[in-house]
């Protein structure tokens, strides 16, 4: 089964938060939504969980009982302990005592939180809070898991652990969609949607998206056109539109290169 959105448009007053955006979220896979601040990622996530109703377009999502959601922020109650958070969410989703106990042990152990069950959430580190938020979103084995920037502000070790949990969730058969500002994370997903100012700039499997890069990307020490160049390590990568004279060392572009090149291409075309 595939959840997702079909040609949805969301407007806040005069501002289009999303414009004609389509996203497929298949089961058993992780779909990433990438974009900068204000690109519309959170609005798309909120549409998928039913918090925002689009002005146009349609949504494919399971009933509320089968949706798991981690909003931006930790998604847990700071003045409750870890165990109390789990118990609250378990009761909301009407899990039986035995099912809740089993699920609590399984998920808290996977998240490395089993030993801090009695600790107040406000005393947890940011990474631990995010992992707890993920545990709460996953507790009732939802068919659709929506994660809004789950790894923002999380330390690298916790990010790796979060990714492991996200990948395992998809492997267990859930449809997982996550928004992120980290392109390296999106590259690990089965499919990616790049949002730019509320519009879908790119979408598809990461390798397909990369293969469809417009023009070429080269590595240069000194860019010829600063507007087309971005720093990568100690050197620069520069985008050369089709038909440009060859220069620099050609590089195998990754998703970050592709997204930047696509944005530059879009600006060239619209000029």
């Amino acid at each position: 089964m595939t959840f997702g959105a079909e040609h949805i448009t969301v407007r806040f007053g005069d501002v289009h938060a999303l414009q004609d955006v389509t996203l497929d979220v298949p089961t058993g896979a992780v779909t990433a939504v990438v974009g900068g601040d204000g690109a519309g990622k959170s609005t798309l996530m909120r549409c998928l969980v039913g918090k925002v109703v689009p002005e146009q377009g349609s949504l494919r999502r399971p009933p509320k009982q089968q949706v798991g959601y981690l909003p931006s922020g930790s998604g847990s109650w700071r003045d409750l302990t870890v165990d109390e958070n789990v118990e609250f969410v378990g009761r909301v989703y009407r899990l039986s005592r035995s099912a809740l106990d089993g699920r609590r042990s399984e998920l808290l152990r996977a998240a490395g939180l089993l030993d801090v069950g009695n600790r107040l959430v406000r005393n947890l580190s940011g990474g631990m809070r995010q992992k707890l938020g993920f545990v709460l979103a996953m507790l009732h084995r939802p068919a659709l898991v929506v994660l809004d920037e789950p790894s923002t502000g999380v330390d690298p070790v916790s990010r790796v652990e979060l990714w492991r949990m996200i990948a395992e969730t998809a492997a267990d058969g859930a449809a997982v969609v996550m928004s992120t500002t980290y392109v390296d994370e999106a590259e690990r997903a089965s499919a990616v949607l790049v949002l730019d100012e509320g519009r879908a700039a790119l979408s598809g499997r990461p390798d397909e998206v990369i293969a469809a890069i417009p023009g070429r990307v080269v590595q240069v020490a000194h860019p010829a056109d600063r507007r087309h160049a971005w720093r990568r390590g100690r050197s620069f990568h520069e985008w050369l539109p089709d038909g440009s004279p060859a220069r620099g060392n050609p590089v195998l572009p990754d998703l970050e290169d592709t997204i930047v090149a696509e944005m530059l291409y879009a600006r060239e075309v619209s000029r």
Partner: protein
Amino acid sequence: MWAMIVKEFRELRRDRRTMAMLVGLPLVLLVVFGYAANFNVSKIDTEVLGPQAQQVAARLHAPFDVTRVDPSGTRAQAEDDLRENRIDVAVVTATSGTPVVLVDGSALFTAQSAVSALHRAGSSFQIQVLFNPDLKTSWVMVPALIGLILAFIGTIITSLGLVRERQAGTLEQLAVMPFRPSDVIAGKIAPYFGLAALDLLLVTVIGVVLFGVPFAGSVALFALAGAIFLLVVLGLGVLISTVSQNQGQAIQTAILVLLPQVLLSGMIFPLAAMPWGVRWIGYLLPLTYFVNISQGIMLRGASFASLWPSYLVLTVMAVAVLGVAILRFRRDLAPNVRAAEPEPAAAP
């Protein structure tokens, strides 16, 4: 430093609540203290009963405002009129002997004004203060303070509890969980209602035991008034939470809502002593009606027959305030396209 000053003014200009406290509050305080802060009651509703009623009534001058003269009236009628708050002072005359002036001690400042006016006149009246014979301030303040404490708890604690949910970003999570909006609202309000009800009981018992305040009337009527008043103040708390993005804003707004109730509900300054230009504000405040009921029941043993208008106003307020609050809160939980607004960033 100049840059800092400019930045501060720019921030202040956009912070409407702080501006309201900076500009509005001094003006309100000035007007209130200028006009309302008056303990001297210049008009005291008085009835004169008994065989000598006409003659005695003719001897009464300001501040006594004789509203009823009944030669066939009795002391029992006079006490009943005082209990049901139909008048402030009753003069009971007999065919011979000194007329007895019955004063309603539950209206403290009115009673004090009446007693001092009678003493000044040097007249030969026998003065009896009912319901609060020693004119103790605590007896009058405790029933009013019960209302004020409930208003504080209901308004501030409820709004803080709801705003905490919004500030932490968990309100959005509740909105997408398999709850009905009414479940979320009831689930959020019920604990505060229960706690405030417990507070009502505690404060009342402590007031009675510690300060010796009498409880002359019906406990059930008092509990009913407490429950209705709680619904009003809880509704105010929910309403404040829907217009506040963080706990600081909620507290500021709650103070702006509570301060007029402290000053203009009649619990400190008697409504009767306020000019109508200010007094009408008092009649828009729920605490005014709860104070009327609590003082009436606890001190005078007043019955529903005389208190029903206050119950009615409080009930209308409860339905209106809670209704609007729930509608606004529902909108936060289940937005539609028109109501869709970008969610503010959650606190880290």
